[in-house]
């Protein structure tokens, strides 16, 4: 089935971005309004498509639109086409919906910034690129969107590029993403080489004929790409520094949408991972490692945005773990992705609201007892907090517990290991999220007299309220009657196997609740009962020190990649100067030297010249003499 409206999903925000960038300062007065309206229009088109989709039968829900024939080189044929099926409509609604709410939030948040118009242009650019990413019908079209969101992320992280650290953070994000992009390029190349096609439909059709080795290679390359974009281990070092961008950016890109592109890629390539069990297991392991990694870092961060960033890293680890658990796990990964989009974006907006009220202070040690001054922020943030730690009946309870359950039910050693890791992660998540909430909103005030915390304007708290509603209700909505699982089943699990139930769902839920309560209790004791020191204490255990240094991720990258790279560059520069330039200069010196030696033959005397001629003639005769020998 074709639809002519799909291109408008992308074209509307793209047009907005281009117009705002080209119009320049002239559009400062109305640029942000136009951008928000275009984003809302895109959401409208998405809603319309969704309603149309609902009215159709299960197997006819996908619509496609071919824009033009893009690449036609020999046997490599790629069309610029868009496809909207049950998986991508989830993302489309999430991107445009949450995106529009964040556009509205940014009108107020960035109202004092003279570059607000440029900010909205970049936001629209991001929306367009992300939509292209999820709507593309081939890996190559996805790649265009992939690069586009990388570009938008770079532009937005380094938005306040007057500060060198922010610009460096943007570069760091871009470079780490680039490493992942290499993985995607290689996956496309291998796919073309072994399967002859790069479109999703084509690969799905031919996946059965390729060797397991080729499919495993493609799967691993796709995993590399996903780790880059979604800040998973080992390419996770950029996410913390990406908090240099304005808070709406962190909410939209680094919580709800861009960092979930990796999960989208894995779920979209389910036919590859299902045929390559090794790659799938690797996906699950990476997810498990990252969820613990991010959780440990989150425990030691005093910067509210960095703590939330670590939390994002950990939650995406859950999604990747879910995606690595096979056909039964894909739907739950997507479910957690959607619910996470609500509560994490809501918490980031809440953090932005707190920062706005506290004059851009980010250190939680200088907060304390803010719930009296920012009630709406406290309420929405609190609802998001309850969702993330998995308290029923909020969203996270349904999605996270399902992942833990599927992990355990995999059976065997890996099932127990992964399940335990997920459970432990849940405990730590409860601990550090409670720490964030308590340090910020509860306890005694630790801020000095200059700050005057106040509630944010309406344009800021209305989106927060809407997202909090999502945090509350979305979990129940997605699970009621297996709605999301059935919705996605034509795309991800054509024939779901019935999983052996090692643990009943109720058992898993009780275990999860228990560990969550333990985590909450420990955090309460440490941060609510005891006084929170305003300055971070120095005599802490070595684990805390390592966690404060982001589990030495930057040190590792520097030692293993950066310094050898620098040494290599220096060696190359020295070689270039000494060897290559030296060779060129040496040729010049040689010529000059030869010339100054040969100069001495110019004596000016005719007779010596005559002698040279004679010697030359003798040489010739000698040559003839030798030849006639």
């Amino acid at each position, binding site marked *: 089935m074709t639809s002519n409206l799909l291109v408008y999903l992308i074209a509307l925000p793209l047009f907005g971005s281009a117009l705002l960038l080209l119009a320049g300062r002239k559009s400062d007065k109305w640029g942000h309004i136009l951008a928000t309206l275009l984003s809302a229009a895109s959401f409208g088109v998405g809603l319309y498509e969704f309603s149309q989709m609902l009215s159709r039968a299960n197997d006819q829900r996908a619509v496609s639109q071919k824009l033009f024939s893009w690449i036609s080189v020999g046997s490599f044929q790629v069309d610029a086409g868009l496809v909207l099926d049950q998986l991508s409509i989830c993302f489309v609604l999430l991107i445009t919906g949450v995106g529009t709410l964040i556009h509205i939030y940014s009108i107020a948040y960035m109202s004092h910034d003279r570059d607000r118009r440029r900010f909205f242009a970049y936001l629209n650019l991001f929306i367009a690129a992300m939509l292209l990413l999820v709507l593309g019908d081939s890996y190559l079209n996805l790649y265009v969107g992939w690069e586009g969101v990388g570009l938008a992320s770079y532009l937005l992280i380094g938005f306040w590029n007057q500060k060198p650290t922010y610009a460096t953070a943007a570069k760091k994000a871009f470079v780490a993403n680039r490493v992942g992009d290499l993985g995607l390029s290689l996956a496309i190349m291998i796919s073309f080489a072994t399967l002859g096609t790069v479109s999703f439909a084509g690969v799905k059709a031919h996946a059965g004929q390729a060797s397991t080795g080729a499919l495993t290679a493609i799967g691993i390359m796709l995993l590399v790409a996903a780790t880059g974009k979604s800040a998973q281990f080992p390419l996770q070092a950029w996410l913390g520094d990406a908090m240099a961008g304005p808070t709406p950016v962190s909410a939209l890109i680094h919580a709800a949408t861009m960092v979930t592109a990796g999960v989208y890629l894995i779920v979209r390539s389910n036919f590859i991972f299902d045929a390559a069990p090794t790659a799938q297991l690797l996906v699950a392991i990476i997810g498990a490692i990252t969820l613990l990694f991010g959780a440990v870092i989150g425990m030691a961060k005093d910067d509210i945005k960095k703590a939330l960033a670590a939390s994002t890293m950990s939650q995406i680890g859950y999604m990747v773990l879910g995606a690595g658990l096979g056909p039964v796990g894909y739907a739950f990964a997507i479910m957690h992705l959607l619910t996470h989009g609500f509560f994490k974006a809501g918490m980031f907006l809440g953090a932005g609201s707190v920062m706005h009220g506290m004059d851009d202070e980010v250190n939680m040690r200088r907060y304390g007892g803010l719930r009296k001054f920012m009630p709406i922020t406290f309420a929405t943030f609190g609802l998001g907090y309850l969702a993330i730690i998995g308290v029923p009946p909020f969203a996270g309870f349904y999605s996270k517990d399902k992942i833990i359950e599927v992990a355990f039910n995999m059976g065997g050693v890996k099932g127990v290991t992964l399940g335990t890791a997920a459970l432990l992660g849940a405990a730590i998540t409860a601990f550090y999220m409670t720490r964030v909430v308590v340090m910020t909103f509860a306890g005694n005030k630790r801020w000095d007299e200059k700050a005057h915390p106040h509630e944010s304007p309406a344009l800021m708290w209305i989106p927060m309220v809407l997202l909090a509603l999502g945090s509350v209700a979305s979990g129940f909505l997605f699970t009621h009657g297996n709605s999301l699982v059935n919705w996605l089943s034509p795309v991800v699990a054509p024939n779901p196997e019935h999983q052996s139930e090692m643990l009943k769902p109720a058992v898993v839920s009780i275990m999860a609740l228990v560990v969550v309560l333990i985590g909450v209790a420990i955090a309460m004791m440490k941060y609510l009962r005891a006084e929170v020191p305003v300055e971070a204490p120095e005599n802490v255990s070595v684990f805390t020190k390592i966690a404060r240094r982001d589990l030495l991720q930057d040190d590792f990258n520097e030692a293993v990649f950066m310094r050898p790279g620098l040494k290599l560059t220096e060696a190359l520069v020295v070689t270039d100067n000494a060897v290559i330039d030296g060779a060129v200069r040496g040729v010049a010196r040689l010529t000059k030297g030869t010339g100054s030696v040969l*100069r*001495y033959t*110019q*004596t*000016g*005397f*005719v*007779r010596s010249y*005559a*002698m040279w001629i*004679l010697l030359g*003639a003798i040489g010739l005769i000698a040559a003839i003499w030798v030849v006639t020998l």
Partner: protein
Amino acid sequence: MNSANYLYVAALLFTIGSIGVVVRRNAIVVFMCIELMLNAANLAFVTFARINGNLDGQVMAFFTMVVAACEVVVGLAIIVTIYRSRRSASVDDASLLKR
């Protein structure tokens, strides 16, 4: 006797002439040595004419003689001119192209 003996004589005369060009300093003596070289070549031509049995070698020698005469005329005129302006007939004095 062997006609080649004339060729040896011609070779020796040629060598002497070429060394003379290099060794002597007086311009006119250098010129005379050049003439000696030309004459040696003429001798060789005439000898070969005799060896081959046709007169082509003699015709060549004839032309060589004519050209040598022209060359002597012009060369000596040049030497006289140089002598008039520089008052010296030594080839070593014309060394302005020294480095």
